């Protein structure tokens, strides 16, 4: 099994599958209701001009987090969903440079 990475370590343009959150319960719950749940696909979109916070695309929306929050979120950056598994999610339009980056969450 590949080692997990911290979400804060992903570069802009990279995508990872969320594995676990290690945050205080209140914050964690809030983030999960915003879509940061295990198995969700998270893509790094932009960094603010000074390098922090960073904008992530998750579940079709864009959410900004600081580095210290993102470092407590573990992701698997190699395990991307394959086409048959794919269910199209808002905000994730399949393009050529990101062939299969869709979240499989539903129906299992």
């Amino acid at each position: 099994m590949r080692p997990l990475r911290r979400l804060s370590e992903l570069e802009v343009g990279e995508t990872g599958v969320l594995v676990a959150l290690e945050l205080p319960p209140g914050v964690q719950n809030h983030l999960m209701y915003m879509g940061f749940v295990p198995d969700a696909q998270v893509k790094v979109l932009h960094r603010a001009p000074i390098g922090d916070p960073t904008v992530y695309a998750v579940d079709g929306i864009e959410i900004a987090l600081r580095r210290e929050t993102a470092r407590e979120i573990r992701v698997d950056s190699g395990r991307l969903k394959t086409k048959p598994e794919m269910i199209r999610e808002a905000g994730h339009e399949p393009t050529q440079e990101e062939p299969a980056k869709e979240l499989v969450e539903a129906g299992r």
Partner: protein
Amino acid sequence: MNDCCTVPAFEPAVHTSVKTAGELRTIALIGPPNSGKSTLFNRLTGLRQKVANYPGVTVEQRMGRMAGIGRDDLTLIDLPGIYSLDAYSEDARVSIEVLEGHMPGTPKPDAVLLVLDALHLTRQLMLAAPVLALGLPTMVLLNMSDLMDARGGAVDPLLLAQELGAPVALVSATRGTGLDSVQLFLNQHGGKNEQPKLMLPVLGNAMSTHRWAAQVSSRTGYRAPLSAKATRRVDAVLLHPVWGPLTFLVVVFGVFQVVFSVGLPLSNGLQDGLAHLGKWATGFLPAGWIRSLVLDGAWNGVTSVLVFLPQILLLFLFIGILEDTGYLARAALIADRVMRSIGLNGKAFIPLLSAYACAVPAIMATRTIENKRDRLATILVTPFMTCSARLPVYMLFIAAFIPNIAFAGGLIGLKTIVMLSLYAIGFLAALVTARLLKSSILKSSETPFILELPQYRMPTLRSLGLRLVDRARVFLKQAGTVILCVTLALWVLANLPVHGGHGPELGESIIGRLGHFIEPVIAPLGFNWKIGIGLLTSVLAREVMVGTMGTLYGADPETQSLSLQTALHHDLPLGGAVALMVFFAFALQCTSTIAVVRRETNSWKWPAVQFAYMLALAYGAAFLTNIVVTALWG
């Protein structure tokens, strides 16, 4: 007083009969942030609640009768957006308390309209579980369905209704489509209470709720629409390390330059027109004290404030564009780094920016800040932000005292630079004060910064137009009430006591004696006694200062024939004029702000501390300014 944002008091629909079980009277609008609840509220009630494109626009419950669909007998409650029924911040707590019927003064809702953004249905369905579990008759409205269709999304509303055990309708609040189904729902539920009969996930567990939501959306054939790529393309520029801040600065400088180059000629034209109109109209009055009261007192005072309407509207137009496009949330993101260095987080930047319009709604907007100490610190520094009521004072004194010198090949003028400096010192005072508070009495551990960035949207002309109309109405009302009363009172006091049928010299009048009495206190700042009177009246609201100047200089025979700018220029040294603007940058002269701080902090202690601190800072800074400016240019 300066009711920047008050809405008419709401009177609930009158019901003579005793309410029977299951009868509908009060309906709550609930949904995630930025899902369009307030836009829908405005549709259903025909009211004009503020809407904009960022999460957290609505921070308190608002009620209105559903006159927009012909149901005057029903009361609709608009609520702040929530992600779940766990209160993460103050505004979310309001929604939850109203839903549970624990909010004093707000009736417990008999039914719920759950508004979900159809563009992100899977995640938004997570809120459906806890809301349906409340057991109230609920209708689910999938808003922005027009955008979903346009971008190739789909969902089967009938299947979804079966899954949820509640009626589902596709609506578009901005276009007003699908609202007939709301009417149908309300008519059907007039007399019976229906319990949802669905299998809900274990509540309170985000993971299981999400799994449930994903299953439901998959079983109902939900296909999420493609996201508009425009937002990411625009953000590639606006969040770029170089282009982002540069664009921001160019826009800010541009706005102030426009306020001067477009706003000032408009103001001057308006001033000439109003002066002629006043002379012509009062020509019909008998010469003597009545004409003097109307022309020199009321008309001069009120119109000297009214002429600044064009500039204020330009400023509101700019702020409206920022809010409606979705840029405000990006500004908060960029500012997070700076805000963190003073111990706050980027979210506090949203109220601070909106305080450029008015501190009152800005202080309300701090409810979105999760940490209580962060919120209090933000409330305490918000009045340092240059609100639009300071604009008339700055414009008047800059026009009267600052020469027209162009820099950078005419791109930017000295007047603009002075104006920007005044905005800058206010902002700096806010930052430094927040830093002091956060490193002493309001110290707390850092709260994480979590902010949803909305998609960019093109502001509609209608929405921007309505803001300007509302703003103009507030401004005119203020001029016609507070400022009119103050100027009339001033004129009377400036013409008493009467000796042998003649009014006194201005300096010998009641107002003159009062002015001379307080003069020693303000003389070190370079102010004369008329400014002193202005400082007293402007405690009501800052723009009253300008009206007071208009009346006092209008009542003085020596300066009566001069324009207010010229009269001031002859009567006040440059040091005093600049010191006055600095004083206004710092002092808390606004009864509405004091009242809202008392309400939001639930004590008189904080507004008292805030008032004293800002007054001391204003006095000290004006004192130094007077010395420095007089030494350099006096």
